[in-house]
């Protein structure tokens, strides 16, 4: 019966897919106009120099990494290699590299380019953010400290074969798919003005950058995927102001736009605009992080009480306009270690009061809540929970800071509580390390979480070679977090990308919806752009 249903569903899906493809075959040519919504400028077009999501929008088009996230299959795939073999101890990976990948300057990519790029990232004098990923490779730290010139864990076997030795039994793809580990051509990237004239392996090559306004790229004809990219030109337009972006999108000046809650409602209600909405459960967990150094929050019952006292569903429905999924625990549902049987905390003020009384706060208490102005995980949420917590006697004193300052506050640990958004994927083990007692506060254990049982589960998971067994361990750890409630589990972000009817092939990337592989995108002839 179940199987039958599955068949029906998949058949329907296939039919739909067939219908979609029958309707239109990708058109060659045209201009794609994407938006970069996160800041008023790009940081750097040197992908090694920047970890920002904003910059990766462009870098995904011009550069490539060893691995990629396949949105359709929702998993890591090899990008610059055709195959990989792993040694028995799980530490030595041998990659058969693509022999058809060319840089925009016409030179073919070889194993040397990977070695050079990874070595560059580890240059200790530069402090490239990608170093945290490459450090996985054996000997990388020595280069970083200046004790070695070459990374010992990288070995070129021939031009198309590379052996990488890593230090931990983890999936290296989680590390080497990050945009800051892109493969660059040495002869270009060592030029001082590389960031103004970036050259990479991606489907589009650099044409123009008007800082603060846009980056324009052109089709790279020698891209390794045959027939791709489709479009002649790719523009990435900077548009940080949501209200202005809304106008521009309705005015058909841009092809894609990221939507906030308010616009999500409006676009869904609009008969035309509603046809062009792409949604995805992003791997971000929004939470209110309790600092146990503040006495009441050292008590698990108090933390649970907060979870019970807040009507999270109501906030998500009315304030966030359903542009989020209720958080159950720390890991998002798209994670393999997510336990689908778990239920989120119920809205139960009575229980909250009871827990508070048990913990010795029958009349509640007052705490300071540090927040940014972010519309999805900042001030508006705080304003909404204030009256809810007031009903169980907890008084909230909001403290508004800039987003830039949040991390610093978390690191110093001088806050009482703080509301923020955390990347919780795709590597579940790395994600859960944020609650590992040996992880220093500065490295992400912002709740000073210390639970031996949890530590044990994580240690075991790290040693476990079998993926399913490891996921089971992580699942247990995640469920433990639920009960310990080091945070108020608020929601997982639902990222929403509005797109014009003439643009096709957009991907619902759960790691970041604005990160599109533009070689798959094409525009039909209804696009007003030339």
């Amino acid at each position, binding site marked *: 019966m179940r199987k039958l249903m599955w068949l029906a569903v998949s058949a329907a899906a296939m039919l739909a897919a067939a219908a979609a493809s029958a309707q239109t075959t990708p058109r060659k040519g045209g201009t794609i106009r994407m938006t970069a919504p996160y*800041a*008023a*400028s*790009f*940081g*750097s077009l*040197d992908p090694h*120099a*920047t*970890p*920002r999501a904003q910059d990766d929008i462009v870098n995904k088009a011009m550069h490539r990494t060893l691995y990629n996230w396949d949105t359709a299959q929702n998993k890591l795939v090899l990008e610059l290699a055709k195959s990989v073999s792993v040694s028995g101890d799980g530490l030595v990976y041998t990659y058969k590299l693509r022999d058809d990948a060319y840089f925009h300057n016409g030179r073919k990519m070889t194993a040397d380019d990977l070695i050079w790029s990874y070595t560059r990232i580890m240059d*200790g*004098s*530069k*402090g*490239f*953010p990608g*170093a*945290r990923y490459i*450090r996985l490779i054996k000997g990388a730290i020595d280069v*970083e400290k200046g004790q070695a010139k070459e990374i010992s864990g990288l070995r070129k076997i021939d031009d198309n074969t590379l052996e990488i030795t890593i230090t931990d039994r983890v999936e290296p793809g989680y590390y080497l798919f990050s945009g800051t580990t892109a493969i660059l051509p040495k002869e270009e990237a060592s030029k001082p003005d590389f*960031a*103004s004239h970036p050259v990479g392996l991606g489907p589009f090559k650099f044409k123009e950058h*008007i*800082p*603060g*306004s*846009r980056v324009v790229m052109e089709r790279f004809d020698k891209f390794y995927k045959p027939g791709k990219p489709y479009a002649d030109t790719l523009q990435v*337009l*900077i*548009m*940080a*102001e949501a*209200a*202005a*972006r809304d*106008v*521009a999108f*309705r*005015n058909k*000046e841009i092809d894609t736009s990221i939507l906030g809650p308010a616009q999500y409602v409006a676009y869904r209600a609009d008969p035309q605009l509603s046809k062009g909405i792409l949604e995805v459960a992003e791997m*971000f967990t929004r939470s209110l992080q309790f600092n146990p150094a503040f006495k009441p929050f050292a008590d698990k019952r108090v933390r649970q009480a907060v979870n019970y006292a807040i009507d999270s569903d109501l906030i998500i429905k009315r304030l966030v306009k359903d542009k989020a999924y209720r958080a159950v625990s720390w890991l998002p549902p798209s994670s393999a270690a997510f336990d689908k049987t778990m239920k989120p905390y119920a809205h139960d003020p009575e229980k909250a009061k009871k827990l508070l009384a048990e913990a010795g706060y029958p009349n509640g208490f007052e705490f300071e809540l540090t927040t940014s102005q972010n519309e999805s995980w900042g001030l508006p949420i705080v304003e909404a929970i204030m009256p809810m917590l007031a009903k169980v006697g907890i008084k909230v004193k909001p403290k508004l*800071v*800039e*987003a*830039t*300052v*949040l*991390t*610093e506050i978390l*690191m110093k640990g001088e806050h009482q509580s703080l509301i*923020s*958004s*955390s*990347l919780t994927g795709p590597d579940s083990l790395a994600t859960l390390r944020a609650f590992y007692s040996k992880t*220093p506060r*500065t*490295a*992400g254990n912002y709740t000073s979480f210390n639970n031996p049982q949890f530590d044990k589960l994580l240690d075991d998971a790290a040693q476990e070679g079998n993926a399913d067994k490891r996921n089971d361990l992580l699942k247990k750890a995640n469920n433990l977090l639920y009960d310990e409630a080091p945070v108020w589990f608020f929601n997982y972000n639902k990222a929403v990308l509005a797109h014009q009817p003439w643009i096709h092939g957009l991907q619902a990337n759960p790691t*970041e919806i604005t990160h599109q592989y533009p070689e798959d995108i094409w525009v039909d002839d209804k696009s007003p752009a030339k």
Partner: protein
Amino acid sequence: MLLVLGRRLANVIPTLLAVVALVFLLFSVLPGSFISGMNEDGRGAIDPAVMERMRKEMGLDDPLPERFAKYVISIAQGDLGRSFRTREPVTRLIGVRVWPSLKLVFAAMSFAILVGVTLGFVAALRPGSLVDTISMVFAISGLSLSQFWFGLMLMYLFALQLQWLPSFGYGDGGIRHLILPAIALGVGPMALLARTTRAAVLDVLNADFVRTARSKGMSERRVVSWHVLRNALVLVVTIVGLQFGSLMGAAVVVEKLFAWPGVGSLLVDSVFQRDMPAVQGCILMIVLFFLAINTLVDIAYVAIDPRIRYRR
């Protein structure tokens, strides 16, 4: 004229130095740093060791006096340092922003002068008339508008509803993209200029020499063109200069709203990302522009008003 320039320069340099010092001190006590800011969206999670090294590389841990001394010395050599964010020299970073900024500021000021001075004149020539009342209601309303709100309204009306103009961005640098931000930025100075011009023209119209001109048997038109215009100009030029000079700094909001790639939007972005060299460079640029415009205004005075040459 050289004298004016010389005296100006003598004033400019201490002001610039003071600006450098003030900005440096202000921003050195800013909470948060570029490095912790890299993690703001929860994606970056930079390794503490890397952060440490970056702090060192950027010289964030050096004692303040040392950093300041280094900064002043490098500025004296024309080097504004390197941006934390893009790792580019700040001079280049700002260099590409200057032209769009200037375009916006000049367009806004042209709009302000054209509309403001005309309105002021028309109003002053018929004081108390309907034209006067309407112009001045218009002007005082222009002064009471919140800039970003007005910009949004322009966007909605001219881009979305009427579809006359693009709503945002720099486009190919053409005039179509320039119009809306220029109006949004220019409406404040426009209103101010309308009021100043009206007052100035009224002032001049009541002056004794205008009565003399009338007693000569001149037509009103000649009275205005021969005697009023130039005298009113002297008063208007002051306000034009002050407004003009501060416009590049005032463009922050408009540039952010319209995604205009000017110095102002770079400044805001840099402040929020704690890219201190870029912040300092932007403010220096804005101040320099202010001082340059004021010098120009001083020179313009000399050209317009013969009294200046001999006074002071």
